[in-house]
Each structure stands twice: as C-alpha cells, then as structure tokens.
C-alpha cells in the first residue's frame, strides 16, 4: 500500500469522526454504548460473580423477593440472587452475543453481496435466489426451529442469529458493489491488468466498507433482540445469564403477578438502552456513508 493511500484513508477517518462528532444523536448513542461496554468490561469490579449463584446467595442470608429499598441497589429475585449482579453480568452475555452474531451476519452478507455483485451473471442469479429464499422464510420460526434442533448453547444461538439475518446485508452490499463496479477507476485498474481479487480488495471493498460498517451497527440491535427473544422463549443457553434469561425467569416465576418491577425492569431497560444506542450510532454512520439519506429527511 502506498503512503498516499494510507494518508487518504487517515484523512477519511478523521473526516468521518468529525462528521460523527457533529451529530447529536450519534454522540448520545456512543455515550450510552460506552457506559454499557464499560459496565460489561468492569463486571467483576461492580458485582461479585458469586451473587449469581443461588446457593451462595442463600448462604449470604439474602432475602427473597426483596425490593431495592431492602436490598440495594436493585433488590433480589425469587431465589435470593442479587438483581444488580444479574444486570451487570447479563450485559456481558447480551453484548457478546449481539456483537458475535453481527460479525457472522456481516461476514456472510458481505461475502455473498460482493461476490454476487462483482462476478455477476449466473453466480449472481444463484446467490440472489438463495438470498431471496432466506428473506422470505419467516425469521422467528426459523430461528426457533434451528435453536431447538441445534441445542441450546451460546455458540448455537450466535449461529442461528447469523444464519437467519444475513440476507438484507447481502442485498445492500450487492447494490453498492454494482454501482462501484461501474466507476471509471475500476475500468482503469482493469485496463492496467488488475485481477478480480485485486480489484475487490483495493477498489471495491474500501468503497463499500463504510456501508458495511453502518449496516453492521444496525444489525447489532437486531441480534441482541433476537437473543433476548430466544432466551425469553426458553431457547437460550440455560447457563448464560443474559438479560433475556433474566426476563424469562422473572416471567416464569411470577414477577409480574407480584409486581416485582425491580426484577424485570433493569434487564428490560438495559436492552432498550443498548438497542437504542446502536441504532443511533448506526443511523449516524449510515448518513455519513450515504449523504443522500440526511438530505431526504
């Protein structure tokens, strides 16, 4: 890579950052997200992991169904566990699953989209028919069936989310690749004797990466919501203390009937906040990558 290209890329990055900083919604999203990332990383400092263990909780003498006023900061659940510990440690699982599933989604979607758009012809036709096939399959039932067939652990959940949510990314990337492919510099590179791999790596990919990044940011909340949904339906990993699992346990054990708001509210609001943060960031990035979006609003 020449230093000119490097410089140009650095300039682009700082331009994007400057634009991003100028967007209020983007900065709010980023701030909220950083709070949760910090919480996930600092979980061992914020709450003793043993508080997730009901046997430990009982030995500690924790009360049952205690509201926050009795057992600060967030009260206890039906088997005496600290809700705060579940909230803090749950952020790790939810964020991890959300991000890992997104990586998988974006990876499959980008590869299919780039190959389809760049190669064109029969390959394009076949790839797009497969993509359409995945698009029309009802998303949640497919995820439920896969999750129950594959077995319930974190990696399978990630796989299920990834395999069910890539098609829209693939179509988006393909569309962008189709326009980039027509640009003059691609023809120039080709006439200079560049091969397909070189063109994709040096000319196509840099030009669709902004879009992929924006799309990835928007895919995270969907992944997190899907993980929550599957966990809530009892299809999550029984040993992963995610926010979805907290919600499921609260529901199954009668937190609603008891008005034990402190049990389900933190996890619910946590999901809401993280999903909102990612959406705000994603929208901002999308507008930067595709300025027409902001004008049309």
């Amino acid at each position, binding site marked *: 890579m020449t230093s000119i290209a490097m410089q140009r890329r650095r300039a682009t990055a700082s331009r994007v950052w400057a634009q991003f900083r100028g967007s209020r919604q983007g900065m709010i999203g980023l701030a909220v997200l950083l709070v949760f990332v910090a919480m996930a990383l600092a979980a061992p400092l914020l709450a003793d992991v043993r508080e997730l263990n009901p*046997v430990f909780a009982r030995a500690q003498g924790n009360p049952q169904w205690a509201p926050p006023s009795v057992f600060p900061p967030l009260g206890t659940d039906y088997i005496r566990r600290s809700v705060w510990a579940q909230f803090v440690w749950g952020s790790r699982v939810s964020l991890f699953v959300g991000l890992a599933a997104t990586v998988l989604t974006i990876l499959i979607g980008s590869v299919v989209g780039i190959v389809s758009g760049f190669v064109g012809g029969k390959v394009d036709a076949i790839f797009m028919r497969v993509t359409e096939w995945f698009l029309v399959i009802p998303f949640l039932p497919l995820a439920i069936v896969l999750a129950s067939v594959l077995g319930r652990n974190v990696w399978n959940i990630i796989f299920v989310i990834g395999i069910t949510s890539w098609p829209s990314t693939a179509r988006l990337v393909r569309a962008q690749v189709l326009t980039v492919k027509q640009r003059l510099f691609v023809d120039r590179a080709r006439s200079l004797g560049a091969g397909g791999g070189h063109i994709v790596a040096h000319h196509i990919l840099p030009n669709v990466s902004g879009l992929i990044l924006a*799309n990835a940011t928007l895919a995270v909340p969907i992944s997190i919501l899907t993980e929550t949904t599957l966990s809530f339906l009892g299809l999550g990993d029984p040993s992963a203390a995610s926010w979805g699992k907290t919600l499921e346990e609260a*529901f199954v054990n*009668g937190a609603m009937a*008891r008005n034990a708001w402190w049990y389900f509210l933190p996890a619910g609001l946590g999901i809401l906040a993280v999903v909102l943060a990612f959406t705000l960031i994603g*929208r901002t990035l999308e507008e930067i990558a595709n300025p027409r979006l902001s004008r049309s609003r």
Partner: protein
Amino acid sequence: MRRFIVLMIAAVVAVSLVPIASAQEEDDQITLRVGLTQDWEVINPTSGYTVAAYEVWNLHYATLTDKAADDFATTPGLAESWEEVEPGVEYVYTLREGLTWSDGEPLTADDVAWNINTGRDQGWDNMVSTVGNIEATVIDERTVQLVSSVPDPKLPTMDVYLVPQHIWEPIATDYDAATQYAAEDGVGSGPFVMTEFTPGQSVVMTANPNYWGWEGDEPPYDQVIFRLFENPDAMVAALQQGELDAAQGFPASSWDALEADADIEVVAGQQGGFDEIAINGGAAEGQPHPALLDLEVRRAISHAIDRPAVIEDLWFGLASPLETMSPSADPKWIPEIPEENQFTYDPERANQILDEAGYMDTDDDGIREMPDGTNPIVIRHAVNTDGDLAGSIGDLMVGWMEEIGIGVELEAYDQDALFGVIVDGTYDTFYWGWVPFVDPDPMLSYFTEAEIGNYNDANWFDPAYDALYAEQNQEVDPDRRLEIVHEMLTMFHDAAVYIPMYVAPDLQAYRTDTFEGWVNQPADIGPVIFSNTSPSYVQLTPIGADAGGSDINWLLWGGIAAVVVILGGIFLARRSQTTSDERE
C-alpha cells in the same frame, strides 16, 4: 410506513375477532374448563406417560374395577361384581348389563379379555406390570375369568385402561403398532370421550351418554376442555377472572393470592407425588461421567443437595421432606430410613467423602479430578424446559455442586426430548417427578432391569432388587409384602441414584361459583382433579344456568398484542436497514 403498521394491527385484530365471535354463538353448551401447565405428549393409553395424559384416559376409558374416592378401595367398575375362586389367583368378573362404547358398539367380555391378553403378549408399557401374569378367558358375553400364573396381591383390582377392541384389533398388530398408534379415534367407555386433541394447546372431551355411571339419565354438563398454559401465572389469572373453572399445578408462589379469593378454593392435593434428582446409574448405552459409577461420588452429591432450602424457597413450605421414593398414594409403603443413612444436607461431609475416595482437585481449578488425576468431574445436568421448577433447580444444582468441587453444564431439553435422552443414557443428572399409582407395584417395577431403556429413568438395576420385586409381586400376605417393599426402597435409597427432593402436593384451585360437587381422592387430603381415578368429573353439577363465563380469552388478546409489539419492533428495526436499500 407507520400507517402500514397500524393497518396491519387492525387487520390482525379483525381477523382474530371472527373465529372467536362465531365460536361463542354456537357455544350454548355447558363446559367445564380446566387449566393445566403440562403438555400431553403421547395420548395413547398403552404408552403415554404424562400426568396430563392420564387425566384424559381417566375420563375416556372405564376400567374393570373402579376405586373409591375416599380410600382407593376397589369398587365395581365395568364389572358389577366378581367372585373369588382362589385368592390372588382366580377371579370371575360379571360385567354390567347393556354396556356400550361411546360409538354404540356393545362392550363385552371379549373386549376385556382381548385387552388383557394382547397387552400382556405385546408388552404394552402401561399394562404389563398389571397383567403380565394374567390369562383372561371369556366365559360368556358378560362373564370373564382371570387366572394369574403366580399369586397376585393386586387382584381382584384390575385398573388398566381398556381400549375398544373393534377399533384397536386391526391396528395393534404388534408392540410398535399398538404403542405408536395416535389413539385419537374418540371411542371410549368413560364419562367423557376425547373429541379433539390439539397438541400443545387443548383437549376437548365430550360427555358420553352411554356411560353407565351418570347419576341421572343425562350427563349434567356437556363437555370438559383442558387448556394448556405455557405460563402458570397466566393460568392463575385466567382462573381468577373466571375463564377457567379449575386449574391444576399452579405455582406455590400463587397460593396466598388464590387462597384469599372468596370465589376460589385451593387444594394441596396429597397423593404421593414427588420430584427427584436422578443420577445416571450407567445401565443404558450412553454412559455417565465415570465418577458417577462410584457409589461414594453419588452419596457425596446426595449430601450436597439442599432439599430444605428448595422446600422453603420454591414451595413456601407447602411440600414435605422425603428420603426415598414414594411408590404409592398411600404413605405406608415408604420405609423409615435410619438417620445415619439419610442424605442430609451437609456439604462438608460431602467434601470429606470425595476426599477420602481420592477425588482431589489436582490442578487447583476448583473442580475435582478422577483419582488418577485426569478427567475433571464436570457433569451434564438436563433441564426440562417444560417443568416449572426445573430451571431454578438447574441454577441451584450448579451452586450446590460448586460447593463440593463438581462442575455442572446445563443442557436444556423439552419434556419429550428429555424422555429420549434418559432412554439413551446421554445425561448425568436431571430433575423431574412422578405421581405414583395406588398399588406400589408399577413404581417398583420401573427400577428393575427389564425397564432399562423404558421407564427406568435411574438407569440403575440390582439383581437383588429384581428378586425382591418378583417376590412382592406374588406375595398375598399384606404385612409380608409391606416388609419386602420397605426393604426394596431402602436398597434403592442406599444406591443413591435417585435423590427424592420432597413429596410434592398437587396445587389445584377451583371456582366455587360455577360448578359444585368436587371430590377429594383420597378423602380430605387428596386432589380434586388429576387424582388416581378423578371421580370429581362425574359428580360435578353446574351452578345456575350459565356455568361458563365469557369464552373470550384475554390471553389470546395479550398474545396478539405481544406479537404485534414484537413484530412492530422488528419491523421498525429492520426498516432502518431497508430504507437505504430501497433508496439506493
């Protein structure tokens, strides 16, 4: 786009209104609505295994002899009388006059004999422990003779469900054909026959006018609907709001709220039901962790399980302690286990047992290894996702085992999948429960070698236990039989493959303003529905003209609202993805 969502909601609401409205108009029938939380799974009476399915059979199939509501004494059923020719060996039963199946076909001695002989020869799962030694011979249309090849203490009681020969004979060509038959033919001999089965949702049972046991000429109400609830709290709410007449298996946490309701009666039905944590004894093809094959390890695990805590925290004191399996609705069959052999909660002692047996944590990671220093003891605990407490017990299991240096991996299965996992032996521990019959024989038979790969969910057997089983099976002296059973259960306890958690009452509640005549079986302490023979259904009479309230299910509405919200959420989230796609 937003307008589109609103339209979509309106459309969903409109569509869902139509079937409800029409169902209500047609519905001038008097219906008993019963809520439950367990799915039926297999509805075939020769091979099903859920409590929910047994309740359906209790209504659908009459038995040769019935059981008294008060004390389970053997009373006339299809047979109006019987004559004892030789005690424990030969009996001659006389059927009631003019018996017919619900489809009008006559029910004769041929039906009885065919069921007993075919069930025995083909080895139907739910019959073989009762009729395994019995030969039935038709004397005439209303008379059937039963002869047991060995003395049988259970006779003259004959409580297996009798299926209609004219439907089943062409189907039941062998064991597989009989036990895998869907059994949704709707022909029965009991007070209500199953006319509609929607797995995972409901069972509709229609009153059988041909049933011999109605007080008057006509059944006092038209149908029984069993409705499955995924969420027990939703069931409790439905009962409180009058959308159910009775609910079975509600959570202990709702006890106080229901007890306080003036129109609702709560019942903590005692009939010997218990829950257990089973440890894979290694007799199936799939093997447990090798450490579990060591009795000392199983004993240590048993000492590490805090049963009083479960009774206090999850049952709010409504369950009572139990030390060995409860084989019968009658507690006299449970032996007293000497205190020094009881598996009292004592993690220190458990650790000591493991230390002495040589299972040390050689690499200091908090998990013990096998005595040779390899293969850390991490066990797979199967969580039954259909069980209301199974998730909590799974979390507790992780905590209990951590105290004694044993790792636990939780694996989730639904109830039917878990049954398969148990048969295959591909688990280390699981938590589930049993509701025994009146005679202890069937429960005792489950832990014999013959039941490996079937009902033996301990995957454990012992030839000495099998010998005692055969002995009690033929012992007609009740005192001697009791002694043998006590010996068997003590032996089973000491093998530490089955850690009974507690005697679990069946928590039931019924409305006092819709039906009356609820019957406890056994008297005073027993459940009113889902009991051994469930006599309530025949005795119930509706109060006033309108027994049922509005049939509109608020749950359905809640479900629709939830689906719309979720769909809307996903839609909005996805929309942000598609906008740029559309505008490209």
